[in-house]
């Protein structure tokens, strides 16, 4: 399956909009997860090349415009991923006692977000898919705390970008947009805390990161310095320069870009 075909399949109404029986829904999603994982691994790896990044940026944004239901389902998958990751982490004993309160709190938040999205989706909600947190790279986060923290940071920074990328698709529903924003900034709080626990700044400088190279797509594009058509690089030499300009604005990811990242962790 090539990437364009895959992108087409993302708008497959059978997956995204049709209320199906839970069993069928789960089966369909699992199957889709496999397809997603299959195409997204090479995509995510290849995204390190400038050519691919440019090609991704060149794709018209309308191609990714989703319905509110599709956005909520997309968000639900991400929240399931986060919730299950933290729950498995707490169950595994990999988290030192001193840090446990932080992951209990974050797990509780993600669990609440799952419940809110399920409530908003009603009959269009689905159960959690199965995840594989080895990420196709043989990672072992539930026995290796450094890997656990790194993935947690990656998931939160991805979540921030994912919600941001879908705000425009929710403009016609004030309540949903506001809920999404209220989740979005909490993901940013989580990201800041986890980044600082790993010795990074709470904010993202350019596209710098300390995650495995396979996850560079999580930060691709964060080096942007143009906002509303205004080039800000060079305007703030006495206020942290380009580094600070990129830190001051978090950048969005498209649904396809996020799915490529999340697909690494679908069983």
């Amino acid at each position: 399956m090539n990437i364009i075909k895959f992108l087409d399949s993302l708008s497959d109404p059978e997956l995204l909009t049709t209320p199906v029986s839970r069993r069928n829904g789960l089966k369909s999603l699992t199957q889709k997860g496999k397809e997603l994982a299959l195409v997204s691994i090479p995509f995510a790896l290849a995204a390190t090349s400038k050519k691919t990044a440019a090609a991704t940026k060149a794709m018209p944004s309308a191609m990714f415009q989703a319905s509110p239901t599709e956005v909520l389902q997309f968000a639900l998958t991400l929240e399931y991923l986060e919730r299950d990751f933290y729950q498995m982490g707490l169950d595994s004993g990999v988290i030192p006692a001193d840090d446990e309160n932080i992951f209990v709190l974050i797990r509780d938040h993600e669990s609440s977000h799952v419940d809110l999205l399920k409530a908003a989706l009603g009959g269009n909600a689905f159960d959690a898919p199965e995840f594989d947190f080895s990420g196709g790279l043989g990672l072992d986060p539930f026995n290796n705390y450094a890997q656990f923290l790194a993935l947690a940071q990656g998931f939160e920074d991805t979540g921030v970008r994912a919600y941001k990328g879908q705000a425009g698709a929710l403009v016609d529903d004030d309540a949903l947009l506001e809920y999404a924003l209220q989740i979005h900034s909490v993901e940013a709080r989580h990201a800041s805390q986890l980044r600082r626990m790993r010795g990074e700044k709470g904010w993202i400088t350019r596209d710098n990161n300390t995650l495995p190279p396979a996850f560079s797509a999580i930060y691709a594009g964060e080096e942007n310095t143009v906002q509303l058509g205004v080039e800000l690089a060079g305007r703030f030499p006495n206020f942290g320069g380009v580094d600070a300009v990129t830190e001051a604005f978090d950048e969005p990811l498209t649904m396809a870009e996020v799915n490529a990242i999340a697909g690494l962790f679908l069983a």
Partner: protein
Amino acid sequence: MKKPIINVEFADQGPDGKLTSRRRFLKTTGLLVAGSGLFMYSCSNENLEEELLTADAAADVRAGKVFNLGKGDLAILNYAYVLEQLEAEYYRQVLEGDYWLNQASPEEKEILQDLYYHEVIHRDFLKVAISSVAPPGKIAPDLIFDFSSVDFSDRTTVLTVAKILEDTGVSAYNGAGNLLENTDYLLVAGKIVSVEGRHAAAIGDLLDPGSNNFASDDVLVDLLGTGIAYDKATDPRDVLEAVAATGFLETKIIANNVPTE
């Protein structure tokens, strides 16, 4: 010419609305008596413009002591610009204070300096953005602030005020999102608000390291009974009232045409 009254009534008044309005009025009057620097003028005419102000008020507008945020997306951009000015000026003074200069750890110094840089960038960016769509008189002026009540030599004070400002910024952008018509503005507000959220978390953690203070139940709210897991989304009028209560802002802000839906 209608003489403007100091009030914060924005919505249509029903029988219940009147009661709310009266309470709100009394509350705000109390704030004003206590020395708040922020006034709001209200008028039955939804399209209140500067010519409806008294001659004295008009002179204040020209002198930059009073500013009307305007209406529509412009009002929201000006509102954001006001908040970013507030934050930037606060951190500028933090970096001149004894806590930052002589007491803060290297990590604390770096974080507060970054926050200063980011807020200056937000502030100056918004000025450029507003300037590209509005004539000079419609852009908020350089505001006048008074942080004399803040002891910049005291760590807890400096960080606590910073946390209030950042948490307020998050709830303000969240509450303004669905008031914006232009999706480009919505996206850029989204790019800023998550950075404010990152700030709020870092400052919260500095105040109580390793605790839940980065996203605590004191700051977050519940939605639909699913648990306390969401940042607030606060309407501009309520944010401006809260800012007024701090006494930090001397310039009077007229906010009665800021969108409410």
